[in-house]
């Protein structure tokens, strides 16, 4: 098992290298580059001033030298300082990544809790009314622009009914609350963002678990289990579901990039101070060091998500477990 994990970790190294390379190339394709952005607002910026700025950021050196220097600093987790406020990019990311991860973990949990039972049930009762309703929901879920759904929910729960707050992660008067009150306040703020970022995933996952269970139900060992007279519940839960859920673990890992990407939209709409909103505001202000930092960190988080999925797959799948020994 250790050998397997080590090998998977080693496989990540060239991918991370590629991620840094693509990030660097994308940013340095910029027609004007970072210095243009800093000086385009002021007409007084002379050629001299531009050269000084270029030297300051090391932009006067050849591209490959710049890349190597950037990667060297990146290995020490130093992404330079933000153009906007002069803070360290690493600090900015560290301050914001927590909220994003919490929201993503909560919505992953929500997805699994809702989608897996729904998928199993609609597979077991294939072509029933329940199954048909689920299928309709899945198609609508796939096709709904979730940022629009967020707007409608804000109008409904925030404006019309006044039940839930529509921005931020805490109220202004939060300091006056007890710890229970704070937790409740925090929960109220997160209900809509978490629910909405899970929305698309719930549709997708009910579909996956449904087809996965349907696939397994056709297998010979299920017929065997039925033939030897096991109760239907036992057949479904002990034999079918356990096998059907294996591939779901992998797909869960594959959904990480979508969730992190969705954070850009949700955090912007709900004004949540996470990595997605940081990325959005960095894009708007062309804060290149921050953009590069978040691109790399976001991609590495995705790789880690896949890694965790693969490792847990190896843990739950006896075939891989035995093979590794």
């Amino acid at each position, binding site marked *: 098992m250790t050998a397997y994990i080590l090998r998977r970790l080693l496989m990540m190294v060239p991918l991370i290298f590629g991620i840094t390379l693509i990030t660097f190339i994308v940013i340095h394709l910029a027609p004007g580059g970072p210095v243009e952005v800093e000086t385009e607002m002021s007409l007084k910026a002379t050629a001299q001033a531009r050269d000084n700025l270029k030297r300051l950021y090391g932009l006067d050196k050849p591209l490959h030298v710049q890349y190597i220097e950037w990667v060297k600093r990146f290995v020490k987790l130093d992404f330079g300082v933000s153009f906007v406020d002069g803070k360290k990019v690493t600090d900015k990311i560290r301050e914001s990544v927590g909220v994003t991860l919490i929201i993503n973990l909560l919505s992953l949990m929500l997805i699994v809790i809702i989608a897996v039972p729904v998928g199993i049930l609609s597979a077991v009762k294939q072509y029933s009314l329940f199954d048909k309703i689920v299928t309709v929901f899945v*198609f609508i879920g796939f096709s*709904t*622009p979730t940022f*629009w759904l967020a*707007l409608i929910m804000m*109008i409904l729960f925030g404006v019309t009914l006044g039940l839930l707050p529509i921005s931020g992660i805490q109220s202004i008067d939060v300091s006056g609350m007890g710890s229970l009150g704070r937790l409740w306040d925090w929960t109220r703020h997160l209900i809509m963002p978490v629910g909405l970022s899970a929305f698309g995933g719930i549709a997708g996952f009910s579909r996956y678990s449904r087809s996965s269970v349907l696939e397994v139900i056709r297998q010979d060992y299920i017929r065997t289990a039925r033939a030897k007279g096991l109760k239907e519940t036992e057949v479904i839960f002990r034999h079918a579901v356990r096998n059907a859920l294996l591939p779901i673990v992998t797909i869960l890992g594959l959904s990480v*990039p979508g969730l992190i*990407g969705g954070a850009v939209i949700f955090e912007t709409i709900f004004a949540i101070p996470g990595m997605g909103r940081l990325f959005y505001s*960095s894009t708007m202000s062309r804060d290149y060091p921050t953009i590069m930092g978040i691109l790399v960190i*976001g991609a590495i988080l995705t790789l880690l998500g896949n890694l965790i999925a693969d490792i847990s797959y190896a843990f739950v799948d006896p075939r891989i477990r035995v093979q590794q020994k």
Partner: protein
Amino acid sequence: MLKIIWRRFRENPLSVTGLAIILVLAMVAVFAPFIAPYKPTAINVYNVLSPPDTAHLFGTDDLGRDVLSRMIWGSRASLKVGFFAVGIAITIGIVLGAIAGFYGGVIDGLIMRFVDIMLAFPTFFLILAVIAIVEPSLPTIMAIIGVTSWMDVARLVRAEFLSLKERDFVSSARAIGASDFRIIFKHIIPNALSPVFVSATFGIAGAILIESGLSFLGLGVQPPEPSWGNILTSGKDNITVAWWLSLFPGLAILVTVLSYNLVGEGLRDALDPRLWQHEK
């Protein structure tokens, strides 16, 4: 062949409905200047944020522009993004997937690692990073969505190539001296296209969603040029007073994307040879 596909496609009423909606939307987009009751950019400061009524079926926005007319013109943006972005994506995907699958070995390894790397970036992240550099506009986001969404097609085409290149008709072509280029483009690609068509249909749906999301964030189609996404931006800005600005454009996106997804589903069943047996 086409007849068989159409006959199988026709069996699914939902997919046919989807196709009908898509055709109607395409007509709306093409004939927008004749259908739209008002000019999409006509500002009327005496009639801002007026709720839906008989003069303005979907109400007016914060500049007094007719929302229905802006939506009709906005359907052009969705249609263009859908087709051009996916056109770019499937072109890149087919070429890279074909090369990887046909030559195998080191080339295959390199291309597939490239696919892995591109897939590691969270959805939206690469697109946003590029938009930070270039000015956002309809043509640029079509190009950006295209060059960041070819990976699935590349994988599909590669998989098709891996099995097709071992078949007898390829060996025969090689035996009579056909060049690699000819074998790839004349013999294998036409046989590998079915899954690409299905994936492209779903891809159009995805591209429309991404475009509307970007335009909503102010990073896509720029006002005053209308798009469903940027009408929703003014919906968010006036969220407490004008529900119609949020409701109708969103429904338009939902119905359009749903239609492409339904057609994709129908196409997948119609093109799946495993479901063909009883036809013959």
